[in-house]
């Protein structure tokens, strides 16, 4: 057999589904092998030694045995568990969104350590920072870049002229922004306000700490997230389920927050 019999790897659990009597199939993201699916036997039993180390959004060190169809997790030991993701629904919802993006944009191809690092640092941020919006959409923009879907934000995708802040539209099919001259007045493409133009470019090129200095109004946040979501949906050819949940939660929370004080970070 040419296949490796056994390997060690670090991994973050992106999602899982029940399988058989007490097993689960896990979708992992690993630094070397990218997205892999593995079988974790018996982890739904209450005395499972691996269950807590193989929860969604836990970073673990694994020993995996190669099998004919699905590799099997032999050992698991958690490295980081991102506890506050499990104690704050808004943090959890953002992590689900990040996981859905990564799962949706990757096939079962070779891994990229940079993507893994981005995932780990994002989970860390989502379990600590106050501005969850920034941590989430910074991840989204950087992920697009790392996976080869980088939207063009500096030159018009049609005429290649350098873009000015005003009057551009986003054309997901063309892979980026279109200048006002080329766009004409196509009503189907969303326009990008000068502020959103600025924020998008920051997210794409500046370190997280620099992006954190931007002052973002709710209006700009909504605009930027809608532009990015439109871009994702075009590429993925399906809607993002966790984005809908995030929006529901926000709407719902606003009414509830009027009654209860906001949970601290």
């Amino acid at each position, binding site marked *: 057999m040419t296949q490796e019999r056994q390997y060690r790897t670090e991994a973050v659990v992106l999602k899982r589904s029940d399988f*058989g009597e007490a097993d689960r199939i896990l979708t992992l993201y690993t630094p070397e092998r990218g997205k892999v699916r593995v079988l974790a036997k018996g982890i739904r039993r209450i005395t499972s030694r691996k269950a807590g180390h193989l929860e969604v959004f836990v970073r673990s060190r694994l020993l995996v045995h190669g099998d004919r169809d699905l590799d099997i997790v032999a050992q698991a030991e958690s490295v980081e*568990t991102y506890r506050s993701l499990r104690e704050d629904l808004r943090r959890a919802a953002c992590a*689900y*969104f990040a996981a859905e993006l990564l799962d949706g944009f990757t096939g079962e191809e070779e891994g990229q350590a940079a993507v893994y690092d981005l995932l780990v640092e994002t989970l860390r941020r989502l379990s600590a920072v106050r501005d969850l919006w920034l941590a989430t959409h910074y991840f989204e923009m950087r992920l697009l870049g790392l996976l080869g879907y980088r939207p063009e934000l500096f030159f018009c995708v049609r005429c290649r002229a350098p873009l000015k802040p005003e009057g551009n539209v986003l054309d997901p099919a063309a892979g980026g922004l279109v200048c006002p001259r080329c766009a004409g007045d196509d009503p189907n493409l969303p326009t990008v306000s000068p502020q959103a133009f600025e924020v998008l470019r920051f997210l794409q090129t500046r370190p997280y700490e620099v992006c954190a200095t931007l002052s973002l109004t709710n209006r700009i946040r909504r605009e930027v997230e809608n532009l990015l979501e439109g871009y994702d949906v075009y590429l993925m050819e399906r809607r993002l389920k966790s984005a*809908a949940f995030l929006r529901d939660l926000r709407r719902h929370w606003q009414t*509830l927050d009027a009654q209860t004080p906001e949970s601290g970070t």
Partner: protein
Amino acid sequence: MGSRVLPEPVERLIEEFSRLPGIGPKTASRLAFFLLRAPKDQAAQLAEALQQLRERITFCEICYNISETSPCPVCADDTRDHGLICVVEEPLDVVAVERTREFHGVYHVLHGVISPVDGVGPEDLKIEPLLERIRQGGVREVIVATNPNMEGEATAMYLARLLAPLGVRATRLARGLPMGSDLEYADEITLLRALEGRREI
């Protein structure tokens, strides 16, 4: 197209079996051939059981557990404490809690958990009927007994927020070390929660 090797009824049964969870084409064929060779009344009993399953089972109008009657025997039982509601994900969880013989309240079955990746949101669960039950009054405490995993926790957090303004006590099942386990294999979150929830001995 080759000619059909197996008679149509056999193929049909194999096809039906292979739609069941965890059953592949091989297992499906084995089951079908077993029934073909088994005594006639065994197949008849299976057929009857299947038919009764859908004909006689309904959902309790109060707790949404599966039942032959509505309200279900638990909800109709006056000796149980109707001011104490245990919220679970699935009907099988009711069975698990009942096995303890120590819970004398009533139940509420959500029929799922919030799972954004699978597109299951709060509106897909029996949350609104629970809130309605509480608004009608008489409920002191709601025990949230969803599973101690990501989705179960998310659902519990969501419920906690909705229950807070209703003025009922909302509690969560304790999380900690399972009986018969080994401390050295415990994960960090379980151990932390076990520490937080420690008791005098």
